[in-house]
């Protein structure tokens, strides 16, 4: 019940954010596109509220209060602007499902199996000792990353490797506001959310590649599932998805990289997508706020996908968009290098 409500709440938030970003009456983007872009927009915006409050060691409750107000305003604004569109979307969904009942039934079944596998199975992972314990520690101490998640000891400075990856802090905010246990939120609610979002992106990719051929799509989606449960070493993105779904790295490896790839396909095919570069920028920035892994992967992926596309299509004006998209990752990576080389430290107290 809690898990279902949490997941639904998440999707309403992402839809509200995505509908504002891709708002437009004429050229409408699909519901799934808005939810997926909304996910990254949500974490991008959160970053700008979280970092200053954390940097000046203000309490988590302050961030929770401010973020709650921001989200309420955005929800309200999006509701006013998009309510009519959402009702149409719901009608469209019923229409689409009705036209391919068997396909959607089997696809849903596939997602449910993945949810059961990721939520019900016990997994022991070392990194949860940082990520989940970090959420628990922030909620318990009402501070943001000031105490060491591993031992609970006070730290005199922020660990910059994780400073800009504010995704777990958002988990802490929700846990503080809702009273839900960090373990339930991270390991169940966020796990289900990420599994569904990832499958949405698989669906969008399969649809785009097969030209909406439902037989090919269904087979592709089934084989993707088989791939994810059989490409099994502790290093693959598939294993991260099936065993450590709630970690930022898993989200970057399975969701962010594929959303970028999906937008690349749309742009390559000159298919309709509203504000593609803004969407890409939000995905790239959002990915960096989810895990620092994105700082090295996203610029490389953007380069190998979009540079050849821009030069092939001779759309050189788009180079500016490409540069803007790789900038967040590059800047955050360089900031970390400066920290490692001892150029600066962010202390957790006034100095």
């Amino acid at each position, binding site marked *: 019940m809690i898990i279902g409500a949490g997941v639904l709440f998440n999707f309403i938030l992402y839809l509200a954010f995505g509908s504002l970003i891709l708002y437009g009456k004429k050229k409408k983007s699909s519901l799934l596109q808005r939810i997926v872009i909304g996910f990254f927009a949500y974490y991008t915006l959160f970053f700008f509220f979280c970092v200053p409050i954390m940097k000046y060691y203000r309490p988590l409750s302050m961030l929770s209060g401010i973020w709650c107000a921001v989200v309420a305003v955005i929800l309200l604004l999006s509701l006013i602007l998009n309510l009519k569109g959402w009702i149409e979307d719901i009608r469209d969904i019923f229409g689409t499902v009705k036209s391919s009942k068997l396909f959607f039934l089997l696809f849903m079944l596939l997602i449910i199996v993945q949810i059961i*596998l990721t*939520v*019900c*199975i*016990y997994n*022991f992972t*070392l990194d*949860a*000792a940082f990520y989940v*314990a970090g959420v*628990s520690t922030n*909620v318990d*101490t009402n501070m943001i990353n000031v105490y060491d*998640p*591993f*031992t*609970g000891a*006070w730290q005199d400075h922020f660990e910059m490797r994780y400073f800009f990856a504010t995704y777990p802090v958002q988990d802490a905010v929700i846990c503080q506001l809702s009273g839900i246990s*960090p373990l339930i939120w991270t390991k169940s609610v966020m796990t289900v959310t990420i599994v569904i979002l990832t499958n949405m992106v698989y669906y969008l*990719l*399969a649809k785009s*590649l*097969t030209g909406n051929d439902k037989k*090919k799509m269904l*087979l*592709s989606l*089934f*084989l*993707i599932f*088989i*791939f*994810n*449960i*059989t*490409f*099994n*070493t502790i*290093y*693959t*993105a*598939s*294993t991260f998805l*099936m*065993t450590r779904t709630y970690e930022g790295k898993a989200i970057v490896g399975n969701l962010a*990289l*594929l959303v970028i790839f999906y937008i690349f*396909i749309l742009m*390559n*095919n000159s298919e309709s997508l509203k504000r593609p570069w803004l969407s890409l920028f939000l995905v790239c920035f959002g990915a960096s706020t989810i895990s620092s*892994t994105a700082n090295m*992967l996203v610029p*490389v992926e953007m*380069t*190998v*996908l979009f540079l050849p*596309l821009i030069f092939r299509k001779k759309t050189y004006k788009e180079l500016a968009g490409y540069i803007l998209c790789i900038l967040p990752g590059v800047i955050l*990576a360089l900031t970390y*290098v400066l920290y490692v080389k001892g150029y600066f430290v962010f202390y957790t*107290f*006034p100095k």
Partner: protein
Amino acid sequence: MQTINLMEKGIGYLETVLDFYSGSCSYLMLYILCLVYIAIKGSDRDREIFFPSGIFLMLTAYNPIAPLILNKFFDVNNEYYRFFWIAPLVILIPYVVSEIIFDKELKAKRSLIIVLMAALFLFSGDFLYKNGIRLAENIYKMPSELIEISEKIHKDADEEYPKVFLEYEYNMQMRQYDPKILLTVDREDYLYAATNLFTEEMLKDETHPQYKIIAALIKYQYVHPEEFKKAMEETHTEYVVLDKNNLMNDFIVAAGAKKVDETEGRNIYKYPLKEKADFELVDYSVVY
């Protein structure tokens, strides 16, 4: 990939990373075969989508020289494998297989192709759940015994934040469930202990008294009882939780600890600290 050293491996580093990354799976080989299929039989659109990025990746991130150059700016030793996440294997392989199965020219041989493709998938992968599955015991996805230990320690403790020594698995999990328990040992020390013994030099290190505790209770290395007691005092470790099969149960009792409770599999000891940990959350309200 802590065990692979980029400086030692040099130009062979990428190949070693690739071996670790793939394990016994052949999906990377399948990916290359799919790229070849796209090059020969794919539509122009498919070639545009999958080919330039595949080639560009092989020239850049998957070039053996790339990690050597990148390592001059960033420490990529442990995480270079993540660059393999960029290649869209998870999309390309299923897509090409579905294209082949539904290829109209091959309709007559479809049954044979399905069998072949199923075999291909079967032998390319390594089933994630081959060793069986262990269902979560509760909604927290934590061992119920860990929850029981947390409750028993709080029931016994005078402080809001008791400091505890736990064995490896519970040490990694306890603070996820209960952030009010402080731990003596952090993750890095335990990761070291998982594969190494503590050297004499480390055991003499006054700045890391916790080494002595892990060495004695987990690695079964000899630590003088007085040195062990000193380490318990210096780390302010008030509780020790040991598996009933741990050989050091008698040692901890001999060191002065008293068994205060137990679970089905573990003993909970309280060590009589001369000076208890005085842990309080920092009052930041005075800052502003």
